[in-house]
């Protein structure tokens, strides 16, 4: 056989190389081989009761983590919360069966994080893992291991921020997948200490530290080999009264494959905190957000009755279901008008369907001191395909950070 790389005619080169490829399959027929299949960029998601059996309007998926470089020390973990209001993959140590190596700073100290949430904090080391979700992979990705017994002592600077959430029951999930519109959970932790990252010389000697961006816990999507400019959450519509569960898809990438095209989506650019301007009840609320990690629709309206049942007093219990209007404006000036949402009577909805975990009309109060916020939670995503583009990425319809639907 003539060499494919010899000085032969172009037609011969083509035929020769085609034959060489075909030979790999043992065939030799005249049909060209199909192109390599695109990366599987779709993972299923579900709204259910969660591992704490108490979740409502909380979206979960599964993630596979491996010890870096290993194909055998791997584990698939279910009920990882899908959260567009945070950044980074965080796993609860009690469910983790593989030993992930802890990241070490140039000083030789271990890197440990104090992840902050409004209702508490989660303490644990930053470890490295090969992460796989659907067919997408991120090699040696910094992830947080929450409640890791290797770093059991929480420094006062971390515990002083609130209540510990380092068990599956207190966290309400086996982990969290933060895929908001930024790469990092901190804007300037490489130059300023915030009480978020700590350098630990020993398990009990930890001090607040700056940390290079590449070592921080990032939105995993930004580290995928492909489809890394954002993601889409696609959920079906649900009846006003709710449902036991709701299943849909999390699709990685925007305009990177035939199944994640932007089409005619409306782009709302978010600010440096991931926020939008919403207009509700004649008020302009400049610190508003759309967030898959919020389990209700939260806003302040003193005209709507709140529930009287103990434990539910911050949720709304109007006499009849209300239909209210809302406008949302992006930083790019684009305005979406005439949106409506329902506010049900929380107590009535719970009484009618105590086994439901999906409540599109569950709404609650924001404290009066937060009058500048409207927090539109997972209910916003029901019946929509919502894209979240990461900062700095340009798609066919805009440049991130943005939310589009």
């Amino acid at each position, binding site marked *: 056989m003539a060499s494919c790389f010899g000085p032969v005619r172009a037609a011969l080169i083509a035929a020769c190389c085609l034959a060489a490829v075909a030979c790999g399959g043992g065939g030799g027929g005249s049909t060209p081989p199909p192109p390599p299949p695109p990366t599987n960029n779709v993972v299923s998601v579900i709204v259910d009761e969660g591992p704490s059996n108490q979740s409502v309007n909380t979206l979960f998926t599964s993630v596979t983590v491996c010890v870096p470089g290993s194909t055998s020390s791997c584990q698939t973990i279910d009920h990882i919360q899908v959260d567009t209001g945070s950044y980074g993959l965080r796993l609860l140590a009690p469910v983790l069966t593989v030993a992930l190596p802890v990241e070490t700073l140039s000083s030789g100290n271990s890197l440990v994080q104090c992840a902050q949430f409004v209702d508490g904090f989660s303490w644990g080391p930053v470890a490295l893992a090969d992460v796989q979700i659907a067919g997408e992979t991120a090699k040696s990705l910094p992830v947080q291991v929450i409640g890791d017994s290797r770093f059991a002592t929480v420094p006062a600077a971390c515990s002083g921020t609130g209540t510990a959430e380092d068990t599956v029951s207190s966290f309400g999930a086996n982990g969290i997948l933060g895929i908001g519109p*930024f790469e990092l959970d901190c804007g300037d932790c490489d130059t300023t200490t915030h009480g978020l990252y700590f350098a630990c010389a020993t398990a009990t000697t930890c001090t607040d530290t700056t940390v290079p961006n590449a070592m921080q816990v990032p939105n995993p999507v930004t580290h995928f080999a492909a489809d890394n400019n954002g993601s889409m959450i696609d959920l079906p519509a649900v009846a006003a009264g709710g449902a036991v569960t709701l299943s849909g898809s999390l699709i990685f990438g925007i305009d990177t494959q035939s199944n994640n095209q932007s089409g005619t989506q409306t782009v709302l650019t978010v600010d440096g905190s991931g926020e939008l301007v919403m207009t509700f009840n004649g008020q302009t609320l400049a610190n508003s957000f759309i967030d898959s990690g919020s389990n209700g629709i939260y806003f302040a309206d003193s005209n709507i009755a709140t529930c009287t049942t103990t434990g539910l007093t911050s949720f709304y219990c109007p006499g009849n279901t209300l239909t209210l209007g809302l406008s949302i404006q992006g930083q790019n000036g684009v305005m979406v008008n005439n949106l409506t949402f329902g506010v049900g009577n929380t107590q009535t909805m719970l009484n009618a369907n105590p086994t439901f975990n999906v409540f599109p009309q569950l709404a609650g*109060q924001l404290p009066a001191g937060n009058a500048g916020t409207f927090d539109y939670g997972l209910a916003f995503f029901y019946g929509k395909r919502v894209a979240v583009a990461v900062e700095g990425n340009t798609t066919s319809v805009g440049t991130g950070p943005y939310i589009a639907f």
Partner: protein
Amino acid sequence: MPIFRSGEIKITILLSAVLIAALGPRIAGATLGEPEITVQSDVAQLRASIKNSSDRASYRVHEIQLPGGTLLREFVAPGGNVFAVAWNGPTKPNLRQALGKYFDAMVSAPKPKFADRRHLQIQQGDLVVEGSGHMRAFSGRAYLASAVPSGVDLGDLH
């Protein structure tokens, strides 16, 4: 470009020191439920600086700028005690410092039904703690219900 002689700098520093000493009791931050004058400790403990202090109709507000960018406001009643603290910024402040002896009550409060990671709503006796937000933007407040001066709109405590 102005050039200062060393003597002028010394005078400026001296005047600043006198000014700070004179204003000291007024510009100090404080801890919830504690007297305003006990303070300075918040500013020192939090490695912070006073951004502004202002008198409202029925209380005084100290704005403390934390080094990470978060603003902490402390509200002082006419009687001289801090009745509320509020925060807003990219990270939460050290609430053990800001809430003082009330911190343990906040931490031990039972988790409410339908809690998520974006909201905080606690009422433990006289203590009320509320918050909302997400990574990169947190806001919240804590106040002692019985210590709020009459006529104060809770909506202004932020």
